[in-house]
């Protein structure tokens, strides 16, 4: 009888350990996948923005073709935003693009015809919408990273993390909080 109890006890404890392991393994996987999902959301918005920016530039060129410095800055950061690189680098490029677009919109203030153009207004509205969505998507990304990092660095999650590294946060650019200064 005692032997049976002992074996039974060992089986129960082993089953519990397996269950806990499975739970934490899956939890870590789920939260890891959520980060990937969150990045995919950002990626979608970056690509939409990539496609939209040339339309805006063309529209503005029709009225203010000599603002070449801004166009070049926009083109450069637009390319960097989608061409490879790490997530941090692409977000950094996206932030640079945000800054460049703001200068463009500020410049547009000096061209009443451009400002009055329906096409320009629509593009501006769409681009601002995308910028907001990028900010929201980054917020979701960062809160997913926070959940993941908390899980794999606290007990008992850290016992099951198997040496997984913490994910990095996507930093909120200073420019997004402060008003943009534009030099004429």
């Amino acid at each position, binding site marked *: 009888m005692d032997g049976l109890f002992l074996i039974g006890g060992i089986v129960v404890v082993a089953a519990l350990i397996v269950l806990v392991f499975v739970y934490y393994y899956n939890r870590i996987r789920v939260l890891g996948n*959520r980060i990937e*999902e*969150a990045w995919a*959301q950002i990626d979608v918005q970056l690509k939409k923005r990539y496609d939209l920016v040339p339309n805006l530039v063309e529209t503005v060129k029709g009225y203010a073709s000599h603002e070449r410095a801004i166009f070049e800055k926009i083109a450069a950061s637009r390319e960097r935003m989608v061409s490879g690189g790490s997530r941090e680098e692409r977000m950094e490029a996206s932030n640079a693009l945000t800054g460049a677009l703001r200068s463009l919109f500020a410049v547009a203030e000096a061209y009443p015809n451009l400002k009055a153009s329906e096409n320009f207004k*629509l593009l501006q*509205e*769409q681009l*601002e*919408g995308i910028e*907001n*969505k990028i*900010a*929201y*998507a980054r*917020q*979701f990304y960062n*809160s*997913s990273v926070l*959940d993941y990092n908390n899980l794999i660095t606290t007990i008992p999650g850290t016992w099951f993390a198997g040496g997984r590294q913490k994910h990095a946060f996507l930093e909120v650019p200073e420019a997004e909080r402060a008003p943009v200064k534009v030099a004429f």
Partner: protein
Amino acid sequence: MGRLDVRDEMAKNRRASVLLIAVVAAIILVLAYTIAFLFAPEYLIVVLPFSLIFIAIYTYSSYMYGDQVVLSATGAVPAEGRDYIYLRDTVEGLSIAAGIALPKPYVIHSSEMNAFATGRDPEHASVAVTSGLIQELNRQELEGVISHEISHIRNRDIQFMTLVAVLVGLAAILSHVILRTFRYGGLIGGRRERRGRRGGGIEIIILVVGVILAIFAPILTRLVQFAVSRRREFLADASGAELSRYPEGLASALEKIMRHNQGKMDVSEAVSHLFFVDPNRSALDALYATHPPIQERIRRLRAM
């Protein structure tokens, strides 16, 4: 932390939905039994299985199509076209921030300022705002209101709240029928007394029970609304502020609404608890409100 709380809320809402369906099913059964007993006692055996089938169909379609019922009952139309770009963008952005599927944006043409969310789960959700809300609020305020509605979706409040709306709607219809039966049933009861049929005492007891239920059915469901709405609204305010990262936007939206709304949206009481603020009463009639007082909501938001 936030996410754990959300999972708690989801579980609570699921339990509440199941409980609600059970309670409503029981009430319908008793009412059907009472009506059958009064009009055609000899068919009781037929009536009961039919009412069970009816309950199954009704609760299922309330679950599946409750959002459509609510949307058409409030006169909401899909938000299409140039005028609603910002609305659509904000709904999409906040749903991304909340990590849920994109809800369908709707507009209600009304000068009152209000909004609601409905649907059975985040994958089948809709957000409706009034044109008055879009007109009167600035962007941060509108964002605040929508973040509140998106929180309702993410917490799965919408499932329970929509079920309450549709199932309460039925309770209201049935109570209406029973009130008519009360007048009519009195005559039948009298006739039966005269004919001296057996079981007259039981008949009267069931009649009384039925009448009491008929009177209490809407009151009970109103109590459910009372109990759930207030806590849910505060919670949605809080998690909405967490989403938009700007409690002041929501607070100042509430302030504008408090000054602007006349409480004359004229929507059915059965759906009023879904709304951001009570559509049928102004902030002054707080005594009868199904919603927490706006001042209190503003106070809590500003204290964050």
